[in-house]
């Protein structure tokens, strides 16, 4: 299996480099992290015209049972267009859109120095002091602001991403469809949540790029600096408050907040002060509920993949999310 993949990867690279010699792939191994993609860091060596070359690369391939149904071609095209934009996105190098070469859809990007630490704000594996962690939390807000400030028309993102007339309605439709498709049994609780979302959705406003999954776990850090946001598979055009809701979702508090030093309201205030936008608190609550509705859809996809034998991991966690969703929707908005 490993040899088959090695041969497939070498063939994939050879077809892209063309008439070169001495192609060598080193260090390839599946990296932990990322529930929806297989990650393979590797070093590529080759010779061309008497010159030796070396590139540090990273391959992300769809697993057999992904928990997110996203399109590698869209991610590749977005990242290609973002390369000369003022945003910390990785450089994409190659694409296997349909998996005909690497077994499953995959993209190859430049590999950057730095480390990944999902829970860096709580100490994580880096064990940075609290002031440094507050600084990193503040940089995460800057990262989000960079994304929302992108001129998506100028970058040509509307060539690959849909421009929603009503971002909240589009988001409900998208995730309700995932739940409908993936659920193995009737879900009365999620029916209640869907109806609540439809009754309480905010009016359409400004459209920006929305990352969809900003979190330290998707970032590479260099010391105490946020270096690059790696994972762009859920990027879309929509309401910027969606990202603010995602990072202030109470369920994800441990990833985004530092108790007593950097809590949800500090994050929102920093975002407002630096952007000049006012975050409507009802809209924020709507997007926090939507964040958990989306997480339930992802968990359900994982459950179906497990029950259908496509993945080895036993997914749980829907119970906790259900409790939170009921509490979050106990009252109507406005």
């Amino acid at each position, binding site marked *: 299996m490993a040899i088959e993949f090695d041969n497939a990867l070498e063939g994939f690279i050879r077809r892209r480099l063309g008439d070169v010699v001495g192609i060598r792939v080193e260090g390839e191994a*599946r990296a*932990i992290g990322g529930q929806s993609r297989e990650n393979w860091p590797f070093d590529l060596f080759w010779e061309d015209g008497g010159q030796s070359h070396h590139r540090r690369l990273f391959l992300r391939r769809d697993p057999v049972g992904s928990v997110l149904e996203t399109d590698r071609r869209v991610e590749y095209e977005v990242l290609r267009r973002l390369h000369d934009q003022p945003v910390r996105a990785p450089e994409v190098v190659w694409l296997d859109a349909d998996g005909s070469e690497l077994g499953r859809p995959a993209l190859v990007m430049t590999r950057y120095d730095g480390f990944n630490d999902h829970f860096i704000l709580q100490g994580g594996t880096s064990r940075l002091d609290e002031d440094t962690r507050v600084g990193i939390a503040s940089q995460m807000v800057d990262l989000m602001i960079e994304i929302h400030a992108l001129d998506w028309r100028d970058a040509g993102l509307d060539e690959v991403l849909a421009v929603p007339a009503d971002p909240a309605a589009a988001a409900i439709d998208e995730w309700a469809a995932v739940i409908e498709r993936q659920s193995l*049994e*009737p*879900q*009365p*609780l999620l*029916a*209640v949540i*869907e*109806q609540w979302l439809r*009754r309480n959705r905010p009016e359409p406003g400004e459209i920006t790029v929305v990352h969809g999954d900003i979190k330290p776990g998707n970032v590479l850090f260099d010391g105490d600096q946020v270096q690059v946001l790696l994972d762009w598979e859920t990027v879309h055009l929509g309401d910027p408050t969606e990202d603010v809701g995602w990072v202030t979702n109470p369920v994800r508090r441990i990833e985004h907040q530092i108790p007593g030093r950097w809590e949800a309201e500090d994050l929102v205030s920093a975002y407002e002060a630096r952007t000049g936008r006012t975050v409507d608190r009802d809209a924020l609550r709507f997007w926090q509920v939507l964040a958990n509705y989306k997480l339930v859809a992802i968990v359900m996809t994982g459950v179906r993949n497990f029950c259908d034998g496509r993945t*080895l*991991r*036993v997914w*749980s966690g829907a*119970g906790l999310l*259900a*409790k939170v969703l*009921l509490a979050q929707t*106990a009252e*109507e908005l406005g």
Partner: protein
Amino acid sequence: MRPTLSEQILGARRVLVELAAPEVSDSYLQEQITFAAAALEHAAARWPEVLPELVTDIRALEEVLGVEPAELEEAVPGVVHLAAAEEYHRGLRARLTDEIMSGSKPPPAVRAYLADSTERLR
């Protein structure tokens, strides 16, 4: 009867944790073994509660839907056929889902049932 199903499940978990895990150096495989061991531990602890909790949820659903309690017991009083109960339960949940989707704001009794049910069926 010994070993009980829980004991057998925990025995399978020991094979993973005590025999397989120490031999594995690959971090991805280690992670998968950890997930599998946790799942077996959960299953061993929870499976005896599944049937009684299912019956409790069926009765709660019947009440919130206003339907007559069904006869769930077979030859031995107190013993319920799991597959039949699951199928009946699924039908009740589908009916409640349809009612919610076709109505406006759900009544407090529905939210109360859902809160209780979420607590019971972890």
